[in-house]
């Protein structure tokens, strides 16, 4: 150990002191600009941003950190509302989500048409045991119909998990507009891909019709 004994200790403590003082200096700087650093969105983003200095913590639940678009927590099912106000599930009960689910927490009940006996697309029931769900997001990633997506709502505490934590289809269903609101970028990209696929399909149909007409 070289130099004065205790020098290293004092040097270290200067860091703590700087951290303590910076908090108040920053507060004053903000106040001089007529802004408050706490309990507003700008303050939270700055306090937790790359230039963060001084106090770093957020006073949850009064203050909440914004979640990024990709944030994932418990899946939900999408339905579309047609012009008559009727709901149509996007889900076709193909079962891919249930097959890829690592903890196997998805149960799907497929229905058969009583007349033809063939499966109908919309599931009769769709259960997710959220006690078991590990929020991996595979179901949303591999769904070919964009029918199941991951939610942003992370405040799901209940008093009795035995009664409330198996979500049925009703509890899981959300309108497409909700999805568009929480994941705008993903939604825009998927809709564009859909429109493209539709156009390609229509073009193929038109081409086939034209070919048939030519013959």
């Amino acid at each position: 150990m070289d130099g004065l004994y205790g020098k290293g200790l004092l040097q270290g403590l200067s860091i703590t002191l700087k951290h303590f003082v910076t908090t108040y200096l920053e507060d004053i700087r903000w106040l001089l600009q007529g802004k408050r650093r706490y309990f507003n969105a700008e303050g939270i983003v700055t306090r937790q941003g790359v230039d963060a200095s001084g106090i770093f913590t957020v006073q949850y639940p009064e203050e909440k950190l914004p979640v990024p678009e990709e944030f994932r927590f418990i899946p939900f099912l999408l339905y579309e509302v047609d012009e008559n106000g009727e709901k149509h599930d996007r889900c076709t009960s193909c079962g891919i989500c249930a097959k890829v689910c690592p903890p196997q927490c998805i149960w799907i009940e497929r229905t058969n048409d009583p007349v033809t006996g063939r499966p109908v697309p919309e599931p009769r029931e769709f259960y997710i045991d959220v006690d078991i769900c590990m929020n991996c997001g595979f179901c949303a990633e591999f769904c070919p119909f964009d029918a199941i997506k991951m939610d942003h709502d992370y405040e799901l505490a209940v008093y009795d998990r035995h009664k409330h934590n198996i979500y049925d289809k009703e509890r899981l269903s959300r309108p497409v507009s909700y999805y568009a609101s929480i994941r705008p970028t993903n939604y825009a990209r998927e809709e564009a891909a859909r429109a493209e696929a539709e156009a390609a399909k229509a073009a193929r149909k038109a081409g086939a019709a034209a070919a048939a007409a030519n013959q």
Partner: protein
Amino acid sequence: MSEQVLDVEKKSEIEERFPEGVRRDDRKGFEGYIVEPDKLIAFATALRDEFGYDYLSSVTGVDYLPDGFMEVVYHAYRTTGGPALVFKTQVPREKPVAPSLVSVYPGVNFQEREAYDLLGIVFEGHPNLKRILMWEGFDGYPLRKDWREPFYEEDGKPFKSRWPEGKVYRAEDKNPFNKNVDYPAGFDPEQWTPVAETAVYAGIGRLEQPVSETALTTDQIVVNLGPQHPSTHGVFRMVARIEGETIVDLQPVMGYLHRNHEKIGERNTFIMNIPFTDRLDYFNSMSNNFGYVLAVEKLMGIIPPERAEYIRVMMAELTRIVNHVSAIGFLLNDLGAFFTPLLYGFIERELILDIFEAVSGSRMMCNYFRFGGVARDLPEGVFEKVRDLVKERLPRKIDDLDTFLTNNEIIRARAQGVGVLTAEQAIAYSTCGPVLRASGVPYDVRRADPYSIYDRFDFDVAVRYHGDIYDRYLIRMDEMRQSLRILEQVIRDLPEGPIQEGKPQYQVRVPAGEAYGRVEGPKGELGFYVVSNGKPNPWRYHVRAPSFINLTALSEMTRGNKIADVVAILGSIDIVLGETDR
């Protein structure tokens, strides 16, 4: 990806040295040598002393139920670098007895115990062959293919009950609490004293001291540290025999967080294992993903596109910084600097976790890597955030941490010269990562056996020579700076392009064979040994957990130190129980 296949010349050399009892493993997709059990010790000794394979990284067993034998698989390396030498020994399932290699490589101690515990392979000559992860009195060997767990449904996922007639039920309702244990007839659990407990106490060494005529005679006592104790970083227990305040001997007791990750992994399909690896070392899910996808990609024979490789390295190095700031913080906690250093580190960790969250959707359970790429490209603004962090904030903050702690006289007094592990011991005990490098062995998988695109980057392997707590602290500081160097190069070179080889698939086809994927995780060498038989589920899935194997050396490090130092020594190894107990 390094090739583990040996060059022809060396191969003949080993075969020449052992004309009998050693043959090449010529099963399709397999590699290395198969050694007869009675030749094993001679073979291993020759490997270590004549061929320079001084580091035995991984030992595990595989149950080949249809073929009627069990196999013990060893992966040996040279500490000077290079690919693995794989050797195996096969024993009949009815009488699985193999010789123990503890006398040649002391580092296999816990790993052989684990193979005994989970597969029932008896290692003859092992000094302490007892269950290590399961409790005493447990019936059966859970990793055997014919063993079934309490909530057994089918051999492999996906379960047929989920679709198309999904009648939902809760697993607990089928097997309610209190009705899920069977005792032998006439057995009363209340009256039972575990034999293993007594054996643990009896098993730890006693120091015989000459009776002094002038001084008072003292008695050695046994102290339990943990399992419920904040200094153990989880649920971990150390049984120490002390003489006054000095440790005479110490034995780690673990398995409190055991969930048989490997059995779950064998029920899962290949892709389902990726989110499960997040839960091993929950501080570093990114590098856990990395190791696992490397192993499976090796089997599948695919290489991810350039951009994906760069993103992978970016995430792996960021997670190293996350781990090291926390590890240093927790070490300081253990030294008595309560929470201030830790929370300063956590500020930087928080900022990096924000990046992980934006990229993968989750802060800690990232589940970001896929076979042949990564799950998604960097969203808008993430690259800029990484750049700002790496170029501006983190170097400054690491310097702050340095000023804050490195020259602190109290830390120096507590950490210097305590918990020393020499280079020879560090290699013999198969320690890895910062523990190995702090003891003066410059062994880093990124340099010694480069995977992914690590051969392109310019960085130094951090190495320190005293092997004490202080050097294990310094080495983490050094490594963070080296990680920043790598990150700067990643930011400079990150190419545009696809992030996934081929189409993302939920059911991948993995050809039959074996593969060992290893990465230099922040805690050390993290390896995944995967055996596929061409089915959707892996036949064998083994994790070489660095925290678990580093604990083999704990007893050696603590002996002769004071009891208050044990906590700091454990903190300097930086264990995480999710990975240790698996």
